[in-house]
């Protein structure tokens, strides 16, 4: 069911993407005013999620169709995901429309500020207001301090931001909430009014701040959540004629937290798990699609025996994997996960003879950042003219791979993206990948025979 819904959502997205707005009104920064801004920064894991609610009003004379978001240069490098929704209606009957977002360069940007433009679905006329819900995700933004810790210490990190929201617009009222994983806060910058309640810090409300206001903010707190970072992930999706989809994922996993110092005592680690190696992680959870079969988990030197699979034919299957050793800060592990899936869940045929493959783009590991993701879709031998539709910019190229009993080789579509995060809690599935392939009429005949094989 879910898989059927995805292409429709996809289509709507692509339609939104197609219109190109050429007219950027230079005076827009003067006519837009933010009446109320609320920012919630979630620092509970190593993936920083920021929810930003903006109430925007057009105070200018002409209608505005774009809103600018500003990011300091330090954040823009770590920005993994940005999404904007326009909320309409009252509290109970709120509906959300997703909006197109694109990076923009402005000539007179102060201090190398970077901008993203949100394109509104309906231009904002004079005096009108709109509510925008913005979610952005930052990776590698928590800086461990002290940089090196021993096995018995817990991990403390810095988070740097601005107490005031950076914006090219005048903000009438703004508040920032910072949620931290535990009560243990070493220190935090005070920008009055500042308040702390349990594991939440409140900055604001601040009234009437001019454009480009900035006030440095530093929070030093404890975060023992696994800082699991996949430095490189290569996912190979191999489509078989015989009704199978074989996925091979090669991970280069690292612990990006505070570096481990001194010796590692296995005895301490096993006998006192509460005090020893709290920031290390032993296992990871991978969410695999339903009806997954033939799962394996190994590395260059053989099978890794520590994994558990909770397979389900309807729900998401869960694979719990343990690396060969617990990962401490700075340690690395490489491994391979492979599994098979029934092809009919993912491959669809359209009326014109093309075939579509709907497949999740991201990494199946929960709460993990992928620095560089490469997806290789290996099409059956003879497939021609593939194209991939992905709702965000990726690098694409074609390769040829030789596998069992191949003569001319298989076409491989390679997609590459940097800085990928698991985004699950958003109302639409952005992480779909459509691959179309088509060919001449001769090819069509051949593909019909393929279809028979698939039905078998």
């Amino acid at each position, binding site marked *: 069911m879910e898989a059927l819904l995805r292409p429709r959502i996809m289509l709507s997205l692509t339609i939104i993407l197609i219109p190109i707005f050429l007219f950027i009104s230079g005076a827009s920064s003067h006519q837009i005013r933010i009446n109320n801004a609320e920012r919630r920064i979630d620092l509970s894991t190593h993936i920083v999620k920021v929810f930003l609610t903006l109430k925007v009003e057009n105070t200018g004379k002409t209608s505005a169709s774009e809103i600018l978001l500003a990011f300091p240069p330090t954040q823009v490098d770590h920005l993994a995901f940005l999404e904007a929704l326009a909320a309409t209606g009252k509290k109970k009957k709120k509906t959300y429309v997703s909006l197109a977002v694109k990076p923009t360069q402005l000539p007179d940007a102060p201090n190398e500020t970077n901008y993203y433009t949100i394109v509104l679905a309906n231009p904002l006329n004079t005096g009108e207001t709109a509510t925008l819900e913005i979610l952005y995700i930052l990776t590698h933004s928590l800086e461990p301090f002290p940089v090196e810790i021993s096995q018995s210490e817990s991990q403390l990190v810095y988070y740097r931001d601005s107490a005031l929201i950076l914006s090219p617009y005048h903000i009438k009222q703004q508040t920032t909430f910072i949620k931290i994983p535990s009560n243990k806060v070493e220190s935090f910058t005070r920008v009055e009014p500042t308040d702390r309640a349990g594991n939440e810090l409140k900055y604001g409300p601040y009234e009437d701040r001019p454009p480009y206001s900035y006030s440095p903010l530093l929070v030093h707190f404890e975060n023992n959540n696994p800082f699991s970072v996949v430095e490189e992930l290569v996912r190979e999706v191999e489509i078989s004629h015989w009704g199978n989809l074989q996925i091979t994922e090669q991970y280069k996993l690292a612990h990006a937290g505070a570096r481990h110092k001194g010796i590692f005592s296995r005895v301490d680690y096993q006998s006192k798990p509460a005090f020893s190696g709290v920031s290390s992680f032993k296992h990871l959870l991978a969410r695999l699609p339903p009806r997954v079969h033939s799962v394996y988990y*190994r*590395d*260059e*030197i*053989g*099978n*890794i*025996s*520590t994994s558990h699979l909770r397979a389900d034919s309807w729900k998401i299957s869960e694979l719990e994997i343990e690396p*060969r*050793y617990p990962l401490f800060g*700075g*340690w*690395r*592990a*490489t491994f391979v996960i492979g599994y098979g899936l029934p092809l009919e869940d993912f491959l669809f045929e359209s009326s014109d003879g093309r075939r579509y493959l709907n497949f999740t783009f991201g990494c199946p590991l929960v709460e993990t950042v992928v620095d560089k993701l490469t997806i290789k879709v290996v099409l059956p031998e003879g497939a021609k003219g593939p194209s991939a539709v992905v709702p965000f910019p990726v690098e694409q190229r074609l390769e040829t791979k*030789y*596998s*069992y*009993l*191949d*003569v001319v080789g298989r076409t491989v579509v390679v997609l590459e993206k940097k800085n990928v995060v698991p985004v699950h809690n958003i109302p639409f599935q952005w992480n779909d990948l459509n691959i179309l392939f088509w060919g001449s009429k001769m090819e069509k005949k051949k593909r019909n025979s393929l279809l028979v094989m698939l039905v078998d």
Partner: protein
Amino acid sequence: MVGKTESQNGAVKATAAPAMNLESDLFSNFSFKSFKLKTKQQELLLRVSILGLVYILAFITRLFSVLRYESMIHEFDPYFNYRTTLFLTEKGFYEFWNWFDSESWYPLGRIIGGTLYPGLMVTAAFIYWTLRFLRFAVHIREVCVLTAPFFASNTTVVAYFFGKEIWDSGAGLVAAAFIAICPGYISRSVAGSYDNEGVAIFALLLTFYLFVKAVNTGSLAWALASAFGYFYMVSAWGGYVFIINLIPLYVLVLLITGRYSMRLYVAYNCMYVLGMLLAMQIRFVGFQHVQSGEHMAAMGVFFLMQVFYFLDWVKYMLSDTKLFQAFLRITVTSAIAVGALALGVGTASGYISPWTGRFYSLLDPTYAKDNIPIIASVSEHQPTAWSSFMFDFHILLFLFPAGLYFCFKKLSDATIFIVMYGLTSMYFAGVMVRLILVATPAVCLISAIAVSATIKNLTSLLRTKSKTAVAGSSKGTGGSKASSKASFDQSQPFQKNGAIALLLGAFYLLSKYATHCTWVTSEAYSSPSIVLAARGAHGNRVIFDDYREAYFWLRQNTPPDAKVMSWWDYGYQITAMGNRTVIVDNNTWNNTHIATVGRAMSSYEDEAYEIMRSLDVDYVLVVFGGVTGYSSDDINKFLWMVRIGGGVFPVIKEPDYLVNGDYRVDKGAAPKMLNCL
């Protein structure tokens, strides 16, 4: 015919019984109905299908380790072979041949191409390339894991032909079935045991078979083939020395027993000259064939052959016997004198190297213990215990003398060979545990002769009996003839019943053998020894994977140029799985270097630190099995470190580490023991 079928059935009974019985039933039905006349074809079909089944059986019985654990390389040496094979497939043959490996024996390094037997790696790489060419996208590891079982299957085929050559096809089939499941061979050829021996036993048996064939036929083609078989053996394993000594010995025995013939002359000369020239192409062997003491016997016999041939010719030319006698005396004396002089001069001038330590220890089992601790420290170099003979051979141990009896009863060139092979290899098997492997084919063949001959005799007894009975009943009812038949019958029943009882007994023994082999294979010889399995408290299987955990940590989390010091057992595994430089490894070519490590391990910490600094050591790997009760950890091996270290550095004395002559590791241990690294 029927007897033969039954004997083969027995040999593979327990493992492939249902299929075999079905088949033989099927064939017997056929034979009595439609194909009554074509006995020859029937036999051929039966033989081929049995051989095919044995071939498959030999392969699948070695897959226990893959099913129990996974498709992985076992133990220590195979990791080195795997690493070199990987290098060969990635970089090509030329690079491989000239490979200088700086990752082992730091800071000395090791010339890999010149110090290994490349046969195994080249074979695996060849299989890999062939499969790749045929568009099978296999991984080189899978090829390496399955190389040994594949060659074990090939060995069964060779065993069949060998048995056929020395006795008859029935013995060949029994030998094939025996060798397919013999634990002595399985121990070295399970899937994953990617070691030289896996290929070498095939090459050994092939060389012997081809040589015997050449001696039997006197054909130059077979001798040539045998030379190539020898070349393959030389390229695969250091055990080729056994061939190059056994064959001259065999020739010598034939000469002494007066069985010299033109066939022998052709076979030996061709095989020796060509085999020697080919073997010199292997860099590790090089000029050893003309320089080393171990190969001199072959050369001596070669010259002796020429003298023999010359004398034969002179005898033919000279009609006078007296003159010939005088000539014979002069020639033999001068030949022996020249030979001895050449040997003496060669040895004295250093041209001919003396025997190596391992060779000495074969001839004198106590030699290694007294002089070379490094050889004595390896468990597979220990003298064999009776129990392990029983474990590896089971009933073959009893069938072996019986087979020898049959061989002596029907002496021929071929049976003399197998007898000599059997006796010498049995001696070597008694000296070193690992050489049971060499003895296994001989034991299998000789036992097969025993089984085949016995069962053939018994069944022929039964068959003549039943035939006469049939004849008696068919020939009619009355008369004196019938009464005479009856009296003849009455003399037989004891013999008949006895034959049946003996046959049943033989089948019982053979089925026991099959069960024993399967049990041994699955329980004892299929453990990769790098992953340990144990039964947990609730009967579930617990897997200890700590070795690989450690190696993988080294691989991932140490700088790429880090040097790891460990006892030499783990050297190959660290380089292959950890991908880091080691100080010493399992190729124990430099005793001093190993002794240095042994000294570092057994010195006080500050002294050890100095030694390690001088070796640039970054990490030290030690294995402690105290928590899980794993017995072969470094504490257990510690005394060997002391002994080997003490062999070179007299500073280290074994008694320092002992308390009243006992080795203790607890609080009561010797102070030096507690304070050392």
